[in-house]
């Protein structure tokens, strides 16, 4: 039992990790209309008709953070590597720079405004003049720059450095330890002014969006932390015990690993929050349902499962609010290897899974509609593409994906010459075909899903077995898949979380080490490049390319979509103003309470 919990927690970390890194202010993401295949439709906000009142707002908003381990306690997003830290320190605003619209596009009105200049290859960040830290210090241009120093420092503990940062002039030299500062940052009004200009080698359309990999979306209090050596920053009291914030709330108290409490930040530049106290407590996912049922919390941040939904959906006085998550489950096929010399993925025409018909047949054989319905309780559904529907613009709802079609699967295999010999099919050359399915250990529900997959594959005459005889522990699973060349796993079930800027080059690019199936094609490279090519500054063109890419990937069936899911939470009916829309930039200030106690 303990083991399962463990792996689950690790998987939850894996699945939610980049949420912490992306630019939106809340860890849950949203949209309202695009969950095409979902059997349960959720609203992305709770429209509470009751009136908020001062007495109620004087109370405490109680939030549960569903997580099986204590949070790490790192308040700075540049150093934190887990979603739980981001969740429990969210009321402080995390120093987020930009406001965004529902498509995560950066808009004016936040802590700073952004303007991109394609001619000069610059991005200008202008901090609002009245922006202050919660200790009264001004937010300066240097505060915008310092996280780049922390992330790019040679001895940093941060995991956030992305190769795309090297597009900033001088970053490569700084990152290598050859320069003391990053030359690509200039300060027209001085370092303590409010304007910073970032000089790039080239500009890309993804820079328009929060969570892109070229720019960092948060500030750090340079004056406050400058005396702490960067490698020791994550352990310092300025980051852990007495952190300062730019958001609507400031930290009242943090109990290491357990809870945080918040009070309004009088120095906040924007709309003052209405609720006077907030507490966030870590609650074990094992008893989160009971905690909500006994009305201990107003709502939940962190991951809730489909089984929780089954328990909570009919709970009196709670409303389920959610939107498609920034993640998707997929089936990967091993098609080649990673050439460590050239740093590129290479497809092997002789690979076991090289036959497109075989891959398509395997995907058509699965009954994902029923599996997700039975085990997801409506909180997950069969995915039709490799881009989650939370991206309302880019998501290609027209794609059919791979619904169950045993007849077609058999036809495809027959056509390709995989003839049945006894119980199972053989390779076209008559040799036996044994396919190894890689899966991660998880809950009993996941185990049942895996068994169903195997059963379906057996139905079309494919001899598919668990790689290594049983599901693998997460670390072993990824250690195996990330090897430059491996033949242990032929097909696997995995999950990706995506940033709020969804260009998938880091997962499916020719030189991507995370391209663990090693699928490469000229067309794929072209489409991936086009997503951020010159023409893609035009939004409708960019949208078109994203949709084309999804269609193309479905045609190739090198990676098969498995399922999408909701990021959701029950919300108590005394809460007013709750919304998980990415466009809700004043989430914390908009929240209010309509009664003193949880109802």
């Amino acid at each position, binding site marked *: 039992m*303990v083991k399962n*919990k*463990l*792996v689950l*927690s*690790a998987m939850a*970390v*894996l699945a939610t*990790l*980049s949420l912490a*890194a992306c630019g939106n202010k809340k860890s849950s993401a949203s949209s309202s209309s695009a969950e095409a295949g979902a059997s349960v439709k959720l609203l992305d906000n709770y429209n509470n008709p009751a009136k908020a009142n001062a007495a109620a707002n004087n109370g405490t908003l109680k939030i549960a953070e569903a997580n*099986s*381990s*204590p949070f*790490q306690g*790192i308040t700075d997003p540049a*150093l934190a590597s887990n979603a739980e830290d981001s969740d429990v320190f969210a009321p402080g605003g995390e120093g987020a720079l930009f406001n965004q619209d529902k498509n995560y596009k950066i808009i004016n009105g936040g802590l700073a405004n952004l303007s991109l200049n394609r001619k000069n290859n610059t991005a200008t960040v202008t901090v609002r003049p009245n922006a202050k830290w919660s200790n009264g210090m001004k937010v300066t241009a240097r505060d915008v720059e310092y996280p780049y120093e922390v992330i790019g420092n040679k*001895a940093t*503990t941060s*995991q*956030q*450095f*992305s*190769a795309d940062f090297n597009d900033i002039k001088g970053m490569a030299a700084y990152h290598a330890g050859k320069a003391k500062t990053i030359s690509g940052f200039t300060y027209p009004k001085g370092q303590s002014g409010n304007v910073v200009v970032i000089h790039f080698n080239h500009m890309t359309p993804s820079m328009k969006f929060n*969570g892109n*990999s070229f720019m960092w979306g948060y500030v750090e209090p340079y004056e406050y932390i400058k005396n702490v050596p960067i490698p020791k920053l*994550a*352990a310092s009291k300025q980051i852990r015990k007495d952190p300062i914030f730019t958001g609507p709330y400031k930290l009242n*108290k943090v*109990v*290491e690993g*357990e*809870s*945080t*409490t918040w009070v309004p930040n009088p120095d906040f530049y924007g709309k003052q929050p209405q609720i006077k106290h907030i*507490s966030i*407590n*870590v*609650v*074990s996912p*094992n*008893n989160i349902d*009971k*905690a909500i*049922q*006994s009305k*201990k919390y107003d709502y939940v941040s962190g991951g809730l499962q489909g089984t929780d939904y089954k328990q909570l959906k009919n709970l009196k006085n709670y409303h389920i609010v959610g939107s498609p998550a920034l993640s998707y489950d997929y089936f990967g096929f091993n098609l080649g290897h990673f050439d460590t010399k050239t740093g590129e993925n290479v497809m092997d025409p002789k690979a076991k899974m090289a036959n497109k018909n075989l891959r398509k047949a395997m995907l058509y054989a699965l009954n994902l509609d029923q599996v997700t319905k039975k085990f997801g309780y409506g909180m997950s559904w069969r995915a039709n593409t490799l881009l989650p529907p939370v991206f309302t613009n880019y998501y290609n709802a027209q794609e059919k994906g791979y619904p169950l079609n045993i007849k077609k699967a058999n036809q495809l295999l027959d056509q390709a010459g995989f003839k049945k010999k006894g119980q199972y099919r053989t390779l076209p050359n008559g040799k036996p075909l044994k396919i190894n399915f890689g899966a991660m250990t998880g809950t009993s529900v996941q185990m049942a899903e895996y068994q169903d997959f195997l059963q379906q594959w057996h139905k079309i005459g494919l001899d598919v077995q668990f790689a290594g005889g049983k599901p693998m*522990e*997460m*670390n*072993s699973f*990824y*250690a195996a898949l*990330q090897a430059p060349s491996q033949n242990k796993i032929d097909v696997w079930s995995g999950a*990706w*979380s995506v*940033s709020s800027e969804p260009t998938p080059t*880091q*997962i499916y690019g020719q030189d991507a080490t*995370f391209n663990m199936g090693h699928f490469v094609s000229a067309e794929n490279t072209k489409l991936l490049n086009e997503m951020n090519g010159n023409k893609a500054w035009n939004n409708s063109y960019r949208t078109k390319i994203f949709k084309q890419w999804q269609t193309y990937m479905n045609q190739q069936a090198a990676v098969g979509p498995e399922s999408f899911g909701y990021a959701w939470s029950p919300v108590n009916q005394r809460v007013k103003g709750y919304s998980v829309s990415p466009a809700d930039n004043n989430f914390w200030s908009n929240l209010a309470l309509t009664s003193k106690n949880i109802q």
Partner: protein
Amino acid sequence: MWKTILRRILIMVPEVIILSILVFLLAKAMPGDPFTGSINPKADPAQLHHLMKLNGLYDPWYQQYWHWVVHLFHGNLGQSYQYQEPVTRLIAGRATNTLWLTGFSMILTYALALPMGVFAGRHEGKLPDTVIRVYTYVTYCIPFFVILVLGIWIFGYVFGWFPTTGSISTNATTWLQTIGSRFYHILLPAILGALFGTVNIVQYLRSEVIDAKRSDYVRTARAKGVPRKDIYRHHIFRNSLLPIAAFAGYSITGLLNGSIFTETVFSYPGMGLLFVNSISYRDYTVITALVLIYGILNLLGTLLSDIILTLVDPRIRIE
């Protein structure tokens, strides 16, 4: 006796060295590393490699071991990869929580089990004995995590008498509130631990009491007309404590081990939870530090048990 203790401590040195090498190698033998687990489309693999290199994780094991030992002698157990803070500080925080919980739980356990054991032994075969025996067997049969889950459900959620998560309330500010809140938070898990952890002590004590009742010195004392109460208090009880004293050393050093089940169910950040998490995150520095601490505590535990034995039983002398 002091000479023996000193010798025992000296023998511990090679034991600890061998233990540390084993621990170190076994931790490294686990598949994965502290950074692979955090792969996501935004984490750059190059940066993860950079971090691996920076932390010397690509060095041969003997080099890594040597660095670790050198740091160890400077009182530096390294930096946790997961928590990004010194392991010593991390463990100190968790150890405090765990000591509160296990310490209180142990006191309660002994407070419950000692009278029960003596009482059962004294009334051997009669109703109280049967009741106590059935009670201990029943509590022994039920898996502890079931009790915990039931306990937190009934007393935490249904009745709402006890807090259900964490080690301290978010509202506790003053010194008194802090102590009170901490105590309140460990009350339920400690009571459950005590109620369902009595079987060993009760059974040992009971059978020792029964044995002692029939021994010559008790008969003599009775013949001399010593009151029953005094016989139990002065003669039987002290002698019956021997086997329990033998465990006491382990119990005391075992306080730090924490309870994985309790800490998981109650989201109580202690040593047990830290250990389990550090394994799933491949937080090598924390794993090795914890296992080393546990190993040393076990060695100390045996020594302590022996010392306690000589204190309670004048017949035993370590030479």
